């Protein structure tokens, strides 16, 4: 895992500083994302083509709503959310470009994963969802909205880590999640992660 992360990091910095991954000829004149195309390419390195991540520890971005993604990028920039890879990357990008990048991923189609949860996992996960009233914000099909991320069909590994990070205060940019996950056991968090990763509307 560590080697993969290191590789990813090297690739990221290489591409963001080289800046010319997409040639000028391929740019469409009216392309509103023209100024961020090369930066997006950097994102694809870990988050997959167009943000449809196939690596289980990297979240799928394609199809999350624009404003949720933009807030996360702003939070990385301000230090409210910390991540060894994302924080230094975002630090060197201007807010207007972050906005465009968030828009880009918001316009992509959500592809999800083919994760399937067992009936036991579904039953255990549903209990957590009911206790936490998750649907009040993430909505009934867990598709999220401009403030709350889509959870249905996200990678299990990413969901599990994120919820544990909230619980252990490693991630602190959504305070009610710190308080809520502080009340759940690691097993409950695992169960709800599987339930949501495999959730089909």
């Amino acid at each position, binding site marked *: 895992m560590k080697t993969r992360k290191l590789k990813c990091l090297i690739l990221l910095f290489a591409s963001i500083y080289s800046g010319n991954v997409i040639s000028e000829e391929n740019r469409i004149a009216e392309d509103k994302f023209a100024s961020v195309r090369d930066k997006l390419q950097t994102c694809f390195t870990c988050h997959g083509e167009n943000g449809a991540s196939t690596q289980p520890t990297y979240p799928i971005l394609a199809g999350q*709503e*624009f*404003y949720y993604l933009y*807030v996360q990028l702003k939070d990385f920039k301000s230090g409210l959310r910390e991540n060894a890879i994302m924080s230094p990357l975002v630090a060197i990008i201007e807010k207007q470009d972050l906005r465009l990048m968030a828009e880009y991923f918001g316009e992509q189609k959500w592809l999800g994963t083919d994760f399937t949860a067992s009936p036991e996992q579904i039953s255990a996960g549903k*209990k957590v969802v*009911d*206790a*936490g*009233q998750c*649907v*009040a*914000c993430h*909505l*009934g099909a867990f598709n999220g*909205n*401009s*403030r709350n991320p889509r959870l249905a069909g996200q990678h299990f590994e990413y969901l599990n880590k994120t919820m544990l990070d909230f619980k252990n205060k490693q991630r602190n*940019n*959504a*305070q*009610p999640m*710190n*308080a*809520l996950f*502080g*009340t759940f056991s690691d097993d409950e968090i695992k169960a709800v992660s599987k339930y949501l990763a495999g959730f089909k509307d």
Partner: protein
Amino acid sequence: MTIQVKKKGYRSFVKGGQVIGLASLLMCAATQNIYADEEVKAGTLYGNMNTVTQRMLDRAGSDANNFLHTNGNYDQTRFYPAEQINRETVDKLKRAWIFKMEITDSLETSPIIVDGTMYVTSSFNHVYALDAKTGKEKWHYKHKMGPITTYCCGPNNRGVFPYGGMLYMGTLDAKLVAIDAATGKKAWEKQIADPELGYSETMAPTVVDGKVLIGTNGGEYGIRGFVKAFDAASGKLLWTFHTIPENSVGVWATHDATGRDMLRDIEAEKAALKKHGDPYKTLGGGTWQNMAVDRESGRLYFMAGNPSPDLYGAIRPGDNLYTNSLISTDMDGKYVCHFQYIAHDVWDLDAVSPPILTKVKDKNGKMVKGVLHGGKTGHVYVHNAKDCSLIRHSEAMVPQENMWVLPTKKGKRMLPGANGGVEWSPMAIDPSQDLAYVMNIHQPMTYHVEATPYPGGKLWLGGAFKVIESEEQWGNVTAVNYNTGNIKWQVKTHQPMIGGVLATGGGLVFTGQGNGLFQAFNSSTGELMWQDQTNAGVNAPPSSYNVGGTQYIVVGSGGNAQMNFKRGNEIIAYKLGN
């Protein structure tokens, strides 16, 4: 499937209702003669009603053809005078039509009916005009949503308000939209407040004398609550009443409206006030539901909800005026009086359900103009409309335990849970019986606190509410005598109740459950008289209307996000069959 339950005579219950009864009977007879044909274009008892006039809105309480207000009339009684569907005939109540909307999600719309045309809304601010007799679509308006919507508890909308030739709607991206009622085309839209800071709209506005009145959601995001008035013709902002005054400290009240000690640490709060100053700019206090309008005195009555953040009080010292309060202003938004139920609330047991104006007995037995409110605490509160003072509160309608234990990090169990008692669901009354009909939630929760600074427009709870998943949840429909505070009857329901109630001149109370049952109860005894199993949670307030001499009952069956009741997309109208 329609299940016949039981029928019983209803005439014996009527006290003051006989005059209305005769009038509506004559009205039915007259309309039946005139409108024997299929189409009802225009012309009812009041003449052409395609344009909703101020006079029509003023007399809506005795109008047995239309349903013009979110809650029936300016007094918000949700008492519909028609009697065709009554205790003797309700067993013949059948589905007349079903309309399926595009969006399948949480459905809280109050159907509005103007001269045979029905206006309903769905989640994400879609509006439909339907032929009220057939359910056939006339037009469909989809609001073009901005990129930022900030809402707690589902992408809901509770309906439009008709005035002149327009319909007015608040949107999830915090706009006020005016729509041409005839065509479904947008006339104008105005930004009410900044959604990035947590403002959004789910309530239907109320329009009076050319002013569109609307509050705001956002008590979970650190907004500063308000009621605003906009010019109905131009959309120009006329005035703003802040539900949070610049001095929000109050009188350091130690006990709630029912006399229970709220265990406040006043000394610590005073020290915090000295250190941090008045927290009014981010103190919450949303107004989620329509205001009652007293046309006689020219006064408005509305509720203000919880302080922000919900559970963490140390950061917001003082009584947090006017959160958790009944507020009255004049028609220009000038403060007249308020009554706070829970000062410095740290449980979100706030004031959401819309107030009702009616004559009540004061403490000396004298009839005075009163205001009723159903609280999340599980009490119906009865006020003197003149000065907002509390006359009495009802006995508790749901179990109350461990009140007011302070939230802790590990969590403390207290009943009611934070959804109530009475949530946003509007009550109904039958003034001839002195009864208020109230829907309640029993959903045990633990309350968890965590110190959290203002997060700049993000969700700000200051902790967490956690449903105790292993404990049974249920609800009830309760009839409260507001002149004594006593419960007259109570029906336990399978599901916690959220949506709304309609009482009718036929001696019935209509309401729905999260399991899809839409039911009619005898308004005097609570006896179940009729029910229909629908495909999704019935969590919207019912309306009633009359087309061509036939009375209809209509309700949305689309479930609820807050309580996670099964979603659907149906508007269902009922009428008497053979």
